């Protein structure tokens, strides 16, 4: 991977400084620092409950930020003057449980944002949706309802939907965890294609093999802090921290 050599020259897409997040008195994120450069693929791993989802959801402000700063694509999310809806159009998000809109067809799911946000006419929106659905291999399901799709197909539609506004960044929160094993491959393939296309990706994942394969960098989180980070080779082959070793010994 060439990431490490050119990283400094590349534009920073995400810059997180001292990020804190509490739910009531429970401080779930206790000062996170992280950077993601343009075109970089960063995988976030760690034990369940360590705050990975919360971290990811702070990156598009689905969670209110309790402290620190998060700058995404040049927008400071903690600045009250920044219109969060504008920022979110630059960030696609894919959820563990797909969250497709059941009352719309597959194509309508994909074209909702461009049409409602006046970025495209209905016809253009549909054309764009068909293009994206072709890209994830589901053009023939355009007029189906989500309920008629398999889990893998649903997640591929969700990815197409997240891509509809041409975001510069895509966030994946355990995109394959809710899938039957035989469907994991088809979704990983779509993500792999995205990674190869040069898109900036942040992946929360339990697929260690996949993280090693596509990741430029891996962040290991534990108990609301970044415990260790590095290239996949460094982190998986030569972990420095006890917590990392312990976690990897359980999942590898």
């Amino acid at each position: 991977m060439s990431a490490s050599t050119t990283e400094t020259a590349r534009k920073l897409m995400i810059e997180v400084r001292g990020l804190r997040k509490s739910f009531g008195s429970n401080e779930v994120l206790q000062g996170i620092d992280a950077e993601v450069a343009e075109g970089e693929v960063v995988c976030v791993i760690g034990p369940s409950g360590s705050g990975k989802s919360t971290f990811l959801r702070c990156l598009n402000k689905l969670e209110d930020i309790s402290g620190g700063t998060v700058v995404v694509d040049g927008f400071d999310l903690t600045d009250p003057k920044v219109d969060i809806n504008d920022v979110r159009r630059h960030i696609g998000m894919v959820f563990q449980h797909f969250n497709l809109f059941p009352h719309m067809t597959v194509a309508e799911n994909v074209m909702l944002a461009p049409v409602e946000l006046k970025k495209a006419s209905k016809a253009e929106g549909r054309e764009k949706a068909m293009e994206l659905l072709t890209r994830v291999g589901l053009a023939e399901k355009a007029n189906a309802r989500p309920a008629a799709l398999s889990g893998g197909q649903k997640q591929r539609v969700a990815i197409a939907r997240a891509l509809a506004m041409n975001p510069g960044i895509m966030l994946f929160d355990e995109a394959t965890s809710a899938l039957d094993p035989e469907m994991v491959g088809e979704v990983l393939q779509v993500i792999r294609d995205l990674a190869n296309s040069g898109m900036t990706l942040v992946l929360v994942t339990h697929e260690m093999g996949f993280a090693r394969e596509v990741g430029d960098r891996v962040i290991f989180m534990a108990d609301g802090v970044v415990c260790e980070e590095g290239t996949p080779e460094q982190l998986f082959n030569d972990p420095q921290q006890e917590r990392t070793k312990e976690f990897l010994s359980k999942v590898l």
Partner: protein
Amino acid sequence: MVAAFLAVASLLFGATGAAADTSASGSGNSAVEGKTFVIGTDTTFAPFEFRNADGELTGIDMDIVRAVAEDQGFKVEIRSLGFNAALQALTSNQVDGVIAGMSITDERKEVYDFSEPYFESGVQMAVAKGNDDIKGYEDLKGKTVTAKTGAEGETYAKSIAKKYDFKVKSLDQSASMYELVKSGNAVAVFDDYPVLAYGIAQNNGLKTVTDKVPGGSYGFAVNKGKNADLLAAFNDGLAKLKADGEYDKILDKYLGDPTAAQPTSFWELLESSLPALLKGLKNTMVVTGISFVVAMIIGLAAGFMKIARNIIVRGISTTFVNVFRGTPLLLWAFMFYFGIPQLTGLPINIWVAAVLTLSLNSGAYVAEIVRGGIQSVDPGQMEASRSLGLGYGKSMQKVVVPQAFKMMTPSLINQLIIMLKDSSLLLAIGFAELLYQGQQIYAANFRVTETLFIVGVIYFVAVMLLTKLANFADRRFNK
């Protein structure tokens, strides 16, 4: 000037009728000429007021007030509200006068101004036709009798209840009282003798067993200190009717020789009552339809307010829901139609009162349905929409609400049907809906069971059709 003088004179001398003789002789009375007065009356007090086979309000009171109006040159708009409702409407200035076979009593004189008596009444007791056990008051020991709430019959029955050891159960309508007696839930009824006489002539299944107790006199009433011109005109007109024999003709028409009505078949009853009932059905449907639209608007607003972040907004909505869910519909019907006008001094249209009553009550339930529907949508739906860059409002509109509505539809259809049936409670304020029309019919012909049966079938069919229509719309729009 004359008008002003009449008004002042009547005000000063109350219902003495002193002013009557001073008005110009001959037809017409300058103080009231050309004016229209709203007159409240009972729904069901044959032969004083009842609906004839054509559904027109008729009877002694009606004939007298119309004849007086014609003589004095004013117009009347009759509102048949029910006895108590008519009096409340008078107190709240919803009507200008009341003629409802009402006895002139000292208590009533404190709040109303009465005309000269236009009818000398009296109370009589009646029992079921087949009852040979009750021959006099002595036979009432330990039994229950019925009488009309607030009427002279009730006063008399209560005055002798201790002595003869019986209980009095008061009801609102003569027809209901007769049914109570025929069903055996009361052994006798105390009612005004002309009413009883007329009912018996109509084959109401009763017979009188005691002599008439000479009683009070009936008078026409206006609110205390109001409408003195109208009162004076009534007295003047009444004096003329009595002088020229018209008055006796009217009484003869209803009491002189009541011809026993030929019992007609069920089908004839159906045929003759259907037009009036369908008119009632139309009012039921229209008031339900309008109220449902208003309830949806109120309910949507209150439902969204219930899930608002702002605690004050939430509090307002919660209070609204709790108040209207925690109080009876009927209370609000009385409140809007009688209470608020008395507080504000502004009369309220009965349709407005009816729609307010139904829609605020239903609105509270719709609010809960809306809140429940929205909260039952997976929060992930809102998150997915927000993460695409759609605002809160757009996300609600495009993603959450359509799904919520799908879940809400069965409950909303249910609410609509409840509302349709609840609208029958509006009869208590004299709103001419279906059941009210049914009451009007059996009040005149005393065929309670058959009439209620017809009304029930109409309600049932209407509800079935509405359910089918709503389910069809549901399938159509909530694919």
